[in-house]
């Protein structure tokens, strides 16, 4: 009886020490799940999820405070990926946040721009170039299409246009959809 108690106590002590050592030696910096969620989010930083950017939303998801269906730019693919990562059921996109749209690009009508810099301050990814009282322009490659610059413009010179595929970015159509079209057509 006594040996058993001693043995178990010793075992617990040793394992406790090992665990204690491991928790210090192999401590993970930061929160890896937040990073993983952040990686899936499209990084438009548009705030449609009601958070101030993709990372705060990722943190909220990781904390279990909000649903995974609040990202319209990511759409169904992002919800699916988040559901896979977190092992939860995917849900349809929350319509409160917006609807899934094709990829957009902000274009400044440079003739109408008065150089007020308000859009530059609004852009979350510094994709607008310009200086006070000088014309501004959008760096097309860096624009995420978040639409945050449209609202502040006092002269309404920013338009959101759909990005057109070029031979580089063009994708082969999904054959199963082509079949479906043919079937419904015939």
């Amino acid at each position, binding site marked *: 009886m006594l040996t058993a108690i001693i043995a178990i106590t010793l075992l617990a002590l040793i394992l406790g020490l090992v665990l204690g050592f491991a928790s210090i030696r192999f401590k993970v910096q930061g929160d890896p799940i937040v990073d993983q969620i952040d990686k899936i989010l*499209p990084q438009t930083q548009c705030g449609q999820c009601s958070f101030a950017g993709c990372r705060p939303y990722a943190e909220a998801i990781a904390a279990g405070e909000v649903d995974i269906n609040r990202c319209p730019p990511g759409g169904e693919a992002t919800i699916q990926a988040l559901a896979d990562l977190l092992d939860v059921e995917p849900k349809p996109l929350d319509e409160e946040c917006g609807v899934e749209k094709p990829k957009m690009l902000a274009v400044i009508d440079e003739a109408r721009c008065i150089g007020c810099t308000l859009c530059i301050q609004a852009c979350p990814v510094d*994709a607008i170039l310009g200086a006070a009282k000088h014309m501004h322009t959008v760096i097309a490659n860096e624009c995420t299409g978040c639409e945050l610059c449209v609202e502040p413009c006092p002269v309404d010179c920013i338009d959101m246009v759909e990005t057109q595929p070029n031979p580089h970015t063009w994708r082969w159509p999904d*054959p199963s959809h082509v079949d479906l079209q043919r*079937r419904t057509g015939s």
Partner: protein
Amino acid sequence: MSAPLGDFPGGLKLPGHKKRSTQGPIRKTPISKQLVLPLQQHIGAAAVPIVEVGDKVLKGQRIARAEGHVSVCLHAPSSGVITAIGEHAIPHPSGLSAPCITIETDGEDRWIDRQQIKDFRQHSAHELRQIIRDAGIVGLGGAGFPSFIKLNPGVHHSVETLLINGAECEPYISCDDMLMRERADGILDGVEIMLFALRASRCILAIEDNKPEAIAAMRYALSGRSHLSQTEIVVVPTRYPTGGEKQLIQVVTNKQVPTNKLPIDIGIVCHNPGTAYAVGRAILHGEPLISRVVTVTGTDVPHAGNFETLFGTPIKDLLVFCETRRQPDEPFIQGGPMMGYSLAGDDLPITKTANCILVGVDDVAPPAQPLPCIRCGDCADVCPASLLPQQLYWYSRAKDFDKTRDYNLFDCIECGCCDYVCPSKIPLVSYFRFAKTEIMNQERERHKSDLARQRHESRLERLEREAQEKEERQRQRKAALAATKAAKAKEEDSTNTAEAADSVTEEKA
């Protein structure tokens, strides 16, 4: 001559249909009124125009320069005037437009001064590669990779074997066959330069055994060059897709190119005979790449044959020249029946990678509704890359792209053997192409979102820094204000005390 050493798995014996286009010699296509030259006819970055609208250009004059490393120059195929630089429809499966230079030809076909090099051995390999790059030479087998890069062994590799791929395994196509028959000497000129540039110890010319005339012509030309003793002709059995680069290497050398590796990693560089010919013309005759041999064939082409065609020639003009029984806007195939893609529209130009225009295919089954996969495994039997097409199909269809990568989707050469044998008529290659472009798109988006995250983070950092600096400035200003106030107060104080002292002394006095 030696026998092939190895074999590749799978493959098909297909009816060749090559006789149709090999009855006559290579003919020259007349110069069209208008030539449309896409700035990108190669893999890599698009060329950058160095001419303007209204400029007069001569045949062979450079009209666009290479941009970055993986890129080549572009030349005027005939003399004339630049009439437009802008978007124009290009021969691409998407049917999209791309930047092109349009030349209105003047019919004089006047050459620019050509710099001929009589003895290329006097030049360094680097100089020769530069000339090849400036001559706009890309792989003419179909992919269009800049040739000068594939002629550079680099510092990490040594090239043992130069493999000239004259297999031309795809049915109907015969442009390499005809080139080898008629211009064997020109091809060997190029081979000599390529061997010199690569410092390769030997050259193998692989030709399928259904081209006895080409084999005989090459053998005859080779017998006239005693110094090319390290070059041999290997006759390979006719089987589709022997002409695939990795497949041919396996047949000829019995070596396998590992996944995600290039032939150069196992000491082999593979070029097309057309490319070798172009290299010879560029170095020995100073002629940039401005034309190629195009096979025009098919059931709707009564006078099928091979045509030396200037780049930019509208495909419509070429088809009219061949007296094709094709209605305007009827679709045709660029490339062969197995790997080519359907194009529509009359306005498309011939580009560097256009090896064949196919109008009408024999015994083609009417498009049928695909049936469910019955898992017969025929597709896996014929796959020359030893893949499992039915698994790839399954995951591509379910859009489970990670899984398709696990099954080595990117090893698929899109040869179409699986499509050909599938009893359910499932368009397998279409699924694989779809999955490949989807994956590439995802990577692009991931890259873009990484960039956006970085920019957003640095913006937040900057804003924070600015706020801190502002606060710091304010604090400093406050401190300075307080200091001046204090100083003033002190001064006043001291004057006060001085005054008081004065009054005291006055009083004392």
